[in-house]
């Protein structure tokens, strides 16, 4: 939803790569991660190739933390050209691979892998974008977007975090694109819909690079000109704040709009006490609201 008509001078892309080892495609064949990573890196480099002032960040998202894979904090690696590849592209590839190894090595051994911290990684991406915007000269038109490449399923546990990030992104005019490698992700699809980004579930992991280049490489202003997969129907179910379950009908706090699956006399989010007029059993009918 950025300023669509005018092509931008520079575009910022943040790629969030889910590296959680309990994704199904990785547990089936761990080597496939390398292939996916290569596709993502080639895609990242194609983004840098578009314009000389394009910015890039790659964030690795693991189950214990998220970390920048590129640009590396501190001094950039000293990379020399080894073949005909553009030096900057070599730097991206080397940095991402090296830092990803460090990230995976740093994972706690004793813990069982949990859920990927995608919402946190998204927040990091937004921070990076606002930093780029702050540092750029005000005359420069910058369009920004975040691409999530993930094979894990989205659980409602991070529902609130997701929504906060999505609406922040909407306000900041940042598109959120999602490329799902495995399952249908209804929550993240909502994010795409809210921010005006694209959602794609790739049918097969072979040719991942082609999917990425075709669908996700054009920036916001260019997407109008191209024929791209449509939005489709979006599942807008919300998760309740008490048990993190998706519901179609529930209770909504009239003060803070928190969603609950069961009635409680005190809102757990804003501590509002609801006056109970009349006997309790008939409550459910009165307070029923569609979400």
């Amino acid at each position, binding site marked *: 939803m950025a300023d669509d008509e005018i092509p931008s001078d520079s575009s910022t892309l943040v790629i969030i790569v889910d590296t959680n080892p309990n994704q199904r495609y990785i547990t089936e064949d761990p080597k496939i991660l390398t292939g996916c990573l290569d596709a993502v890196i080639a895609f990242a480099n*194609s983004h840098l190739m578009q314009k000389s002032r394009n910015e890039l960040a790659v964030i690795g998202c693991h189950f214990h933390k998220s970390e920048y894979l590129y640009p590396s904090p501190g001094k950039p690696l000293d990379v020399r050209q080894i073949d005909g*590849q553009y030096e900057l592209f070599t730097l991206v590839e080397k940095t991402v691979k090296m830092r990803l190894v460090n990230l995976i090595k740093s994972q706690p051994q004793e813990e069982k892998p949990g859920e990927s911290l995608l919402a946190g990684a998204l927040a990091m991406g937004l921070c990076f974008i606002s930093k780029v915007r702050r540092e750029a000269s005000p005359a420069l038109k910058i369009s920004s977007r975040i691409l999530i490449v993930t094979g894990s399923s989205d659980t409602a546990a991070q529902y609130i975090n997701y929504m906060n990030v999505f609406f922040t992104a909407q306000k900041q005019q940042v598109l959120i694109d999602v490329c799902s490698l495995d399952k249908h992700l209804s929550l993240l699809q909502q994010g795409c819909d809210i921010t005006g980004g694209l959602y794609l579930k790739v049918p097969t992991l072979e040719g991942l690079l082609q999917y990425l280049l075709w669908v996700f490489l054009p920036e916001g202003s260019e997407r109008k000109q191209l024929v791209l997969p449509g939005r489709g129907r979006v599942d807008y179910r919300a998760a309740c704040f008490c048990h993190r379950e998706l519901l179609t009908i529930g209770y909504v706090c009239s003060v803070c709009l928190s969603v609950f699956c069961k009635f409680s006399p005190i809102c757990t989010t804003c501590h509002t006490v609801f006056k109970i007029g009349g006997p309790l059993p008939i409550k459910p009918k009165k307070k029923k609201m569609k979400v």
Partner: protein
Amino acid sequence: MSESSKFKSSNLNATPTLQCKDLHEYLKSRSSQFLENLYNYPTICLAVYRELPELARHFIIRLLFVEQPVPQAVVASWVTQTHAKEQNKACEALSELSVWHEAPIPGGLPGWLLAQSFKKNLKVALLGGGRPWSMSQTLEPDGKARDITFLDAYALERWECVLHYMVGSQQTEGISADAVRILLHAGLMTRDAEDGSAVITKAGFQFLLLSTAKQVWLFLQHYLQTAEKRNLSSAECLAFLYQLSFSTLGKDYSTEGMSNNMLVFLQHLREFGLVYQRKRKAGRFYPTRLALNITCVRDGVAPLEAKRTQGYIVVESNYRLYGYTQSTLQVALLGLFTELMYRFPNLVVGVITRESVRQAFRGGISAEQIIKFLEQHSHPQMLKTESGGIRTTSVLPPTVVDQIRLWESERNRFTYTEGVVYNQFLSQADFVVLRDYARAQGVLSWQNERTRTMVVTRSGHDDVKKFWKRYSKSS
């Protein structure tokens, strides 16, 4: 009656305007064979790719991994109906630069196929493979590495040397015969008729008012044109230039493996400040920001400027101009269109007068160029002051801006229209009839009843002639 002396409206605004082509236009004017040769260099492919329109870039990316021709109808279907115009433009650009060419597909339909060398080398640049651009991986760390601030200062100093020479400042020791030859070739300077010394031309003055990135690019374009005479292949030079523009600022690169010709070229670039070398035989060089900005000459793309040297010009609404500068170049530039009054160690005071501005106009400088120059270099203080409550887009006082424009339009009091003269009418009546007819048609430019002369516009000539034939026959 006879109609005679067709006025030819030649371009009477004969002051040549300086052409600054971007890479796309430069390549377009070259033969396709030359282009094919160029696409053997991954650097050029990368540069050409970035110069293309957005849609064209996506076409290439989508075709990059396709080996056989793709039907034109398929390519067209990638774009929404409402943007057919952009699509045509993109296809045209790709054909113009021989990035792709038509190839029939088995069914007989017309298809597009990317040029083999372009595809191969763009893939190399993007994904790796092939040979490295320079032999830099064997380079040992430089004991006396230079940082970015040093390189910026060096580049600026070298480039200003060239500009200084052009305005005829006294510092002429820093410039070689080669650079002078290029300036002469480019028509930016010319040999003085009397003593053979180089003097600046009108185009040269316009050149001085361009932004640095544009100046460098224009200069290099002329350099490449003269390159052949020096036994340098211009394709090779262009590839090397773009290799420089895709390098990292503040990093050293090895000269090993470079041909003798390229080493000569490197020395020239060193002279203009595009690369820094400690010694001629140092075996390594540092590209500077001037070289990196070659890819940013297109309009609207702001170059990657260093933390800008701050503006130094204050213009007041009473046409006074203060330039806080010590550089003789900047003073000379101001002198192009102002009458300088006082000179202090760090300040020059001048006044913008009708005469001084007209002097500049005669030199082929346009009002727009002057205003742009003043805006670009205006002192930070100027940005703060509000111009008497009037919000204008410019930081300059509106009176000054308007007056400079008026002075320019003052020179353009003539408007030229093509026309045909009708004279030697036999009777006054004939003249009046034809004049009134022409007037009614709205094609009469001028008439004089006493001399029985009238001028009809070019487009109206046929019509009036026909009318005259009919009229003279009937009477």
